[in-house]
């Protein structure tokens, strides 16, 4: 479904070109949920944006459903994007539009007429169980509800792919499972291929069929859920092991690794 071939993405920075994504190839099968995990700055969000060309790769090919997006014209790319929904860490809803109007927006951009927009937006809000919040503005919704509106907005145009950029990083743990459940349902019911970028291993464990571990712009390791759940499974890379262990380890003897001015300041208190 999604074929990322030798994709690199560099940005110009004050200290010269910075390579956010470094020669990544990744094959994501139709109807699966692909997790991409890594620390901040590993390049996972840039790689996700390479899939719908929000960030144009410096080199390489991105095939979605057999079409190389890199070669498309602006207009063709915009049409193609109606097939690729996206949700974000901070929801990115329009504050001055109701839930219903927010969902209608993606349909409007897809050129759907007004009456049809209204009908399909209401239908999609139904999928995320927010029909009763159709007339509510985002400010009056909880974090989880906002993300569900965003999911509805992404789904309204009937996409084949849903890109999720840290979809649960701004909501509390209980809401996390609810949001992930909706994503899992969407995947199961409509066969939508989902790509989830996150730094939370429990999210990956809960939802991903396949996992790609990223570090410094490269995919350093890939494994699937079955492997991950096998007792005694050890990722090959240290970063993979660290992420899978999903534990915070501290030295509480008071001789921790950092003896910065800040920690010294704490001692004096």
């Amino acid at each position, binding site marked *: 479904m999604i074929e990322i071939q030798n994709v690199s993405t560099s940005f110009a920075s004050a200290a010269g070109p910075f390579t956010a994504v470094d020669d990544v190839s990744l094959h994501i099968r139709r109807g699966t949920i692909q997790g991409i995990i890594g620390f901040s700055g590993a390049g996972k969000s840039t790689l996700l944006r390479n899939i719908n060309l929000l960030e144009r790769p410096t080199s390489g090919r991105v095939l979605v459903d057999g079409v190389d997006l890199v070669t498309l014209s602006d207009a063709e790319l915009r049409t193609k994007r109606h097939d690729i929904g996206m949700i974000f860490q901070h929801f990115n809803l329009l*504050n*001055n539009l109701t839930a219903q109007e927010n969902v209608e*927006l993606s349909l409007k*951009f897809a050129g759907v007429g007004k009456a049809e927009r209204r009908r399909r937006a209401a239908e999609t809000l139904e999928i995320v169980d927010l029909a009763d919040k159709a007339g509510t503005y985002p*400010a009056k919704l909880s974090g989880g509800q906002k993300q569900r509106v965003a999911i509805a907005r992404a789904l309204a145009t009937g996409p084949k792919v849903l890109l999720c950029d840290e979809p649960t990083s701004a909501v509390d743990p209980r809401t996390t499972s609810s949001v992930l459940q909706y994503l899992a349902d969407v995947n199961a019911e409509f066969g939508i291929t989902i790509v989830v970028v996150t730094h939370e291993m429990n999210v990956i464990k809960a939802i991903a069929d396949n996992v790609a571990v990223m570090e410094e712009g490269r995919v350093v390791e890939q494994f699937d859920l079955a492997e991950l759940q096998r007792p005694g499974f050890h990722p090959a890379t240290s970063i993979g092991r660290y992420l899978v262990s999903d534990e915070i380890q501290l030295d509480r003897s008071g001789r921790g690794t950092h003896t910065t001015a800040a920690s010294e300041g704490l001692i004096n208190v």
Partner: protein
Amino acid sequence: MFDRILEVLPEIGVAMGQTLTMLLVAIPLAVLLGTPLGVLLYTIGPNGLKHRPKLHRVLDGLVNLLRSFPFLILLIAIIPVTRFIVGTTIGTAAVIVPLTLNAIPYFARFVEQNLSQLGGGVVEAARSMGASRSQIVRDVLIVEAKPGLVSSITIMTVSFISYSAMAGLVGGGGIGDFAIRYGYYRYETPLMITAIVLMILLVTIVQLGGSYVARRLDKRL
């Protein structure tokens, strides 16, 4: 004292009418023409949808140039332009031209500022939905900036009530000019105070009205 005020009441009425005419023509025109200019400034700016450094520098400089003119000097400097546009260089119509010319870049800056404060999140979301640049401007940026824009229009209107007082220089009239003529030139302090009270009222009404509309439009809380 009250007799005197009653005596010139018709003239005060005319003056208020002139001030309102100036505002009701200049402000809508500034919004109409300043909005696209402001959108363009934002769009081709460093954080815009289509960065065009050279064009941006030129437009940016032009806006700064117009904004640097003290209003009184602009009023005189563009007299030929005024004659060309409204066919006269005196009277209320003649003041509206420099008022508008001053207000357009003024409002364009407000628009630019309001748009750049929105943050990239909604724009990125719109792009991911396959929106074109004009759709992003119309259906996302303007929608989100609307309450801020109404506040900007309010601020601009209040500023231009003050600017319009200089209209007397070219015989444009208005309530501010009335205050200057009767209060300053003729030492009729009660008349000046009357005119100033009217201006305070006008500013208060504009401010209260503007704040009310902005609050109603703002759904962030």
